[in-house]
């Protein structure tokens, strides 16, 4: 009897601890959304192929959200990710067109590295201006985003172009061991890498310190400027990689194909519990945010909701998800 009560007490404290963890909010929301979706579409939604499909779509937004999380953690924001994705996709598609025509079916590693460097470079420009001029990240990345958008339009003349090699076709449509889509696998790997970066390294600790209190971080001897610039470079990098993933799926360089990813990524990160004021949040939460956004898109299509109504519902769910977050912690 004594044991039982101890057990119950132990259980309730475990539940309490789970509930008190700031991460649990978004995951509870995720589970609820999954259950509701399974009820709304019992035939299709919970099937393996549909879930794999959701994950595949989630992986692109998820990739953008990784870098966005880092930037939000230093109390910044990056509105140029959409355009980084577009320019990277278009440039890579163009570069691959010739080699694909020449019968090259490989990874086009040169083109891949080139576009990833483009992403990093844009991040470097963003970060440097923001840090060295003390400018607002919102307006600076809005500006650089527009510049890149324009350059992409000039480069592509506004029309989709280029193609992808056999390797990237497979990457976009096939699955590892016929089980996990390659895109999801890449996303998972990058998540692990960035989770290690944020939680197991000095750099990650510095990111949280800067986001919590920039002045205290500086007076503790942390190199605030360089660390912040690196955050934007990382964000540019993941955006570029997301651009490549998107390209692999649609198989053509589409200058408009990535629109909306910036806002979706920011929403996913914030739904996942990361504070826009910096210093608080993590990638585990972002994952929940990403999945919530992806499931939402999926289920609204499955139940055949009016596309215009879908936008309204999406907006409402973002609002609710953010409003139910715990204020403290």
């Amino acid at each position: 009897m004594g044991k039982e009560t101890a057990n119950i007490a132990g259980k309730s404290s475990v539940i309490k601890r789970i509930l008190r963890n700031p991460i649990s909010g978004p995951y509870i929301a995720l589970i609820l959304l999954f259950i509701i979706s399974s009820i709304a579409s019992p035939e299709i939604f919970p099937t393996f192929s549909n879930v794999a499909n959701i994950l595949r779509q989630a992986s692109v937004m998820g990739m953008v959200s990784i870098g966005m999380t880092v930037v939000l953690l230093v109390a910044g924001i990056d509105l140029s990710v959409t355009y980084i994705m577009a320019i990277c996709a278009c440039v890579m598609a163009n570069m691959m067109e010739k080699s694909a025509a020449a019968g090259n079916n490989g990874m086009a590693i040169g083109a891949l590295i080139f576009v990833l460097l483009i992403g990093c470079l844009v991040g470097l420009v963003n970060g440097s201006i923001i840090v060295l001029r003390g400018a607002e990240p919102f307006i600076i990345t809005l500006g650089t985003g527009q510049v890149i958008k324009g350059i992409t339009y000039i480069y592509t003349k506004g029309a989709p172009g280029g193609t992808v090699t056999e390797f990237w076709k497979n990457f976009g449509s096939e699955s590892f061991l016929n089980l996990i889509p390659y895109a999801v696998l890449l996303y998972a790997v990058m998540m692990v890498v960035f989770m290690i970066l944020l939680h197991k390294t000095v750099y990650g600790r510095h990111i949280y310190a800067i986001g919590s209190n920039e002045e205290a971080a500086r007076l503790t001897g942390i190199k605030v400027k360089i660390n912040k610039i690196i955050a934007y470079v990382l964000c540019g990098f993941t955006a570029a990689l997301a651009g490549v993933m998107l390209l692999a799926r649609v198989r053509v360089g589409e200058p408009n194909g990535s629109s909306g990813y910036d806002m979706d990524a920011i929403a996913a990160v914030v739904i996942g519990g990361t504070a826009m004021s910096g210093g608080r949040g993590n990638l585990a939460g972002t994952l929940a945010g990403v999945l919530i956004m992806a499931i939402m898109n999926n289920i609204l299509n499955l139940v055949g909701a009016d596309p215009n109504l879908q936008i309204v519902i999406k907006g409402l769910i973002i609002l609710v998800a953010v409003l139910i977050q715990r204020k403290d912690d």
Partner: protein
Amino acid sequence: MSEYALEMQNITKTFSKVIALNQVNLKVRPGEIHALIGENGAGKSTLMKVLSGVYKPDDGKILLNGKEVAMHNPKDAIKKGVAIIYQELSLVPELNAIQNLMLGQEKNTCGFIKGKEENQFAKSYLDYVSHGAIDSYTVPVKHLSVAQQQMIDIAKALSYNSKIIVMDEPTDSLTNREIEILFECVRKLKEDGITVIYISHRLEELFALCDRVTVLRDGQYVADENIADIDKDWLISKMIGRDLKDTFPPRHRSDSREVVLEVEGLTGEWFRDISFKLKKGEILGLTGLVGAGRTEVLRTIFGADKAKSGTVKICGEKVDIHHPSKALKYGLGFATEDRKAQGLFLNQSIEKNITMASLNKISKAGFLNKPKEINMSASYFKSLNVAAPDTKKLCKYLSGGNQQKVVLAKWLASECKILFLDEPTRGIDVGAKYEIYQLMDQLVQQGVSIVMISSEMPEVMGVADRVVVMHEGNMTGEVMQKEFTEEGIMKLASGERKIG
């Protein structure tokens, strides 16, 4: 009419088991200037926050003119005639005097501001308070001096028909001349029947200005007297409840001659030509009035601000520190005055705060070694006696004294050789203060050298081995411990130069 304009009876207030106020009484007669004094942490601010409705008391009554009232929130308190002027002024820097005064009580028709009426209304109060001491009513108040801003705050309080005005350490950041102007203003309020509660730790001021005094200590009411009947020694003994000498731990100093830090002709934005030497195992006091440039000197040495000229030598080697990260490499540490804004990562755990300046010691190739981090933070958590359930607690939930301990732990963990402490005991209760002095003593025994900025004269005299005094950006003198007198140091702090 009741004998008292304000009576606070048996006010008790606890914060999660910590008793901040225990059965405190305060009786203020109409039209008097009533001083409320006590050490930091004695409960003055908490009592005033109860009065203004920021906190709800657990127990006790508030009576205005003999009638019991309940203060629900600051707005409610203002409505009932009680206004508080805080140290941090509540003005909007970008608005001008008139706009600030009218903020929240704008004269308008359907939302459109009636400029003429506002000007007239605001000017009547501003003129009354300032007598022309405010340069302009139409420039943004950020361009005005602190004293002028204070007057606007007072005028604002009067415009709400306040009968009781509380001033919380109003002279802290004023020059002597400005203090005089403020005193004029306060005396005028008194003549016109306004009751003033005046909080200050500058005892001289009380004798110059106030009629009665209430003393608090450790959250308890101690005494209530006519100023005319008492003297300074009486006040101090009531405030600290024991002799001054027991406030500070005994000194254990080595007699080292080794100079670890030498500053020569250092000039920055706010100070000129500062030179001093710091010896190994010494506590050097750096004192002066607020605004004398003390903090800026240390910030500049630490690489947080830019120096215009001058040299800094560490252990005889000339160094060029242009970023705090470099200061850490040379073994410097800096516990800033404003813990929350500049010292702590409030949203992070105690553990992460403690190790933040020593991550290189607990990492390899950029990867953190978690067991080492846990060990490091636990050992300082224990040795500094931080009152918290465990090291995972977020720093924002700690009291001021414990937050300061975490800041100190951070620098101890970095094993710095030279430690700058800027007002290390500000806002900390008496018991924790003693612990911090003890810790400083232990540190210097271990060969650490400390520069301590402090505005509290007893602290400077009780802890420092030598004092450098500054006045308005200039160094006015250096005093050895055996020559310490409060008067002598105050003279230097107010600008009299030491000859020879």
